[in-house]
C-alpha cells in the first residue's frame, strides 16, 4: 500500500565488512576533517575496542584531538556540555563515536551544541527544530548490534536537574558515516547479544507496522528481519563468528533506517517507561513486550504481522501456516525466539524476571502514555490498555 504522503531520509554512508575501520581516516579526509574527538566509554577502552580503532589509523594522516571516555549508561546534558568543552579546548574538527546508544546519543548532543553554537541544548528539544548549520563531520562505530542509532534521527539526553529525558528528532542528527566492522562486536557476551538483537528485531517489526511506514522503510525492515532470523542464534551461540556478527550489525543498521523513518510505537513507549521506572535494560524490555503488544495490535495490524512471518520464520513455515493464522504465528515465533535465549543465556521473558515490582506497573503505564511513540502506534492505547499489557507481560 502506498501512503498518501511520506518522507524518507537515510543519508548515512555505510562501510560494512572486514577492515572497515581502516577506512575511517579516508572518510575524515573526504569530509575535510583531520582532528576528531573520540567519544566512547571506560569499559570499551578497558577491553581494548578503542585501541582497535586507533590502531587502524596507523600510517595515516590523522591526529586524535581527544579521547573522551566519561560517558555513563544514560547520556546527560552535563556530559554533553563537558564533551563540548573538551572539543573546543582541543580544537577538534569532527566526532568519532565508538559505542552503543548512550555514546552515540552523547555524540549527537555534542553535534547540536557545536553546530548550533549554543550551550543550552534545551532550546533544540523537540521534533525537526534543528536546522543544518556549520555541518560537523560525524562518524559512528557501533559496538552493539541493536540500537541502530548509527542511522537514526533521534537522540535522548537526560536533564537530571529538571528530571526529564529530552528527546531530539531531526534529520540533521544523522551521522555522515557508519562503520560496521565485525571486530567491534565479537566480544559482546551472549546475553547482551541476544538482548540487543531483539532490540533490532523490535525496531524492524514496529518500523514495518507504525503510522509512518512507507515502501522504503518496509524494504529495510524486511531485510533486517531476514538477517536476524538467519544469524541472531549463531551470534548468540558462537560470538566469534565474524559473518554472524557482521550480519547482525547490518540488521541493526537496517532496522535503524526503517524505524528512523517510520518511527516506533507501543512496544517502545512501554519499553522506555520500563527502563525509566524500573531500570529494565531496553533490549530485555523489547523482548518481553513485543509479542504482547503485537497481540494487542492484532485486530488492527494482523495483516502486516502476517506478512512479517515470512522473514521471521522462513518460507516453509510461512507457506505451511494458514493465512488467517500467520499474524499470531509471527508473535509466537518471537516468543519462541526469546524463550530459546532465556534457556541459552538467561534473557528474561517476563517483567517479573526482569526485576519489575508489581506495584510499579501503574507508574510504568502512566509514564508510557507521555512517550512520543504512543502517537505513532496505529491503535489507540489508553492507561487501562497499557496496564493490561503490562499485567500480561508480568
Amino acid at each position, binding site marked *: 500500500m502506498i501512503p498518501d504522503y511520506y518522507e524518507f531520509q537515510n543519508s548515512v554512508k555505510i562501510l560494512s565488512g572486514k577492515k572497515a575501520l581502516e577506512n575511517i581516516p579516508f572518510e575524515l579526509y573526504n569530509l575535510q576533517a583531520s582532528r576528531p574527538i573520540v567519544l566512547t566509554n571506560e569499559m570499551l577502552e578497558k577491553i581494548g575496542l578503542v585501541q582497535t580503532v586507533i590502531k587502524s589509523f596507523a600510517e595515516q594522516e590523522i591526529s586524535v584531538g581527544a579521547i573522551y571516555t566519561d560517558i555513563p549508561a544514560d547520556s546527560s546534558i552535563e556530559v554533553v556540555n563537558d564533551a563540548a568543552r573538551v572539543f573546543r579546548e582541543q580544537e577538534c574538527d569532527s566526532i568519532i563515536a565508538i559505542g552503543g546508544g548512550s555514546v552515540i546519543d552523547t555524540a549527537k548532543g555534542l553535534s547540536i551544541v557545536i553546530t548550533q553554537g549554543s550551550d543550552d541544548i534545551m532550546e533544540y528539544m523537540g521534533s*525537526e527544530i534543528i536546522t543544518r548549520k556549520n555541518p560537523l563531520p560525524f562518524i559512528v562505530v557501533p559496538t552493539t548490534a541493536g540500537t541502530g542509532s548509527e542511522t537514526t534521527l533521534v537522540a535522548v539526553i537526560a536533564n537530571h536537574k529538571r528530571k526529564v529525558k529530552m528527546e531530539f528528532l531531526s534529520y540533521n542528527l544523522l551521522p555522515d558515516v557508519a562503520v560496521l566492522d565485525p571486530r567491534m562486536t565479537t566480544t559482546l557476551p551472549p546475553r547482551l547479544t541476544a538482548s540487543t538483537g531483539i532490540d533490532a528485531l523490535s525496531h524492524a517489526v514496529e518500523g514495518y507496522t507504525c*503510522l509512518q511506514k512507507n515502501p522504503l522503510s518496509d524494504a529495510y525492515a524486511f531485510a533486517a528481519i531476514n538477517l536476524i532470523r538467519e544469524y541472531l542464534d549463531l551470534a548468540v551461540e558462537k560470538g566469534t563468528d565474524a559473518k554472524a556478527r557482521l550480519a547482525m550489525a547490518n540488521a541493526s543498521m537496517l532496522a535503524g533506517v526503517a524505524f528512523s523513518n517510520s518511527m516506533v510505537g507501543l512496544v517502545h513507549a512501554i519499553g522506555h517507561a520500563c527502563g525509566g521506572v524500573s531500570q529494565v535494560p531496553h533490549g530485555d524490555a523489547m523482548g518481553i513486550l513485543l509479542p504482547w503488544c503485537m497481540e494487542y495490535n492484532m485486530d488492527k495490524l494482523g495483516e502486516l504481522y502476517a506478512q512479517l512471518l515470512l522473514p521471521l520464520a522462513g518460507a516453509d513455515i510461512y507457506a505451511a501456516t494458514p493465512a488467517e493464522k500467520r499474524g499470531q504465528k509471527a508473535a509466537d515465533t518471537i516468543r519462541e525466539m526469546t524463550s530459546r535465549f532465556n534457556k541459552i543465556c538467561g534473557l528474561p521473558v517476563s517483567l517479573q524476571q526482569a526485576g519489575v515490582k508489581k506495584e510499579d506497573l501503574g507508574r510504568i503505564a502512566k509514564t508510557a502514555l*507521555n*512517550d512520543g511513540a504512543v502517537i505513532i502506534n*496505529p491503535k*489507540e492505547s*489508553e492507561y487501562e490498555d497499557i496496564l493490561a499489557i503490562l499485567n500480561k507481560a508480568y
Partner: protein
Amino acid sequence: MGGDIIATTKVVIGKKPVKMTVARIIFWFLGRGFQAAAKHDSRIRQEVAEWSPDCSIILKINPRGPVMTVRKVDGKLKYMGSSQPQDLELAIYFKNIEGAIPVLTGQKGLAQAYAEHRFTLRGDIGLGMSVVRCMYLLETYLFPGFITKKILKRVPKKQVSSFKIYLATLFG
C-alpha cells in the same frame, strides 16, 4: 550554449487568503473551544493540572500564518488569542497552510499529520503528547461523529454535550 541570461522574470510569491482566513477562524474556535472543554471535561482538566504553572503553548502556521495561544493561568487554561509569549513551553508549527488545512477541517487526524511530518514541535515531547490527548477530546466535542470516527484511532466518550461546549466556546 552557456549561461547567458536572456530574460529576467520577477517571481511573485502568491497568497492564499481564503485558506488563511479559514485557518484563522478555526484557530479562534479551537482556542475558545479548548478553554471551554478544559472547564467542562475532567480529563482535559486533569491534563492541564499536570502542566507547569504559567505554561504557554502555541499552534502556528509557518511562516507567517495564524497563531493560536493558550496559557495556564491560576491553574486554568486560558485562550490568549494570537499573542506569542516569549516563555513558550511548547510550540507546534505547521510547515505550511496546505499541511494545516486538512487537520483543521477534520480531514486528517493529528497522529497522521505527525506521521507525515506536517508539523514540527519545539519543546518537551511528553507535554506534546498531553496536548495531543486534549486535542483528541476537543475534536470529539467540536467535530461531528462521522468525522471523529475517521480521524481518531478511538473516539473518546463525551462527558458533556457538544452543545454545551459550543455555547461556552461562543459565549464564554
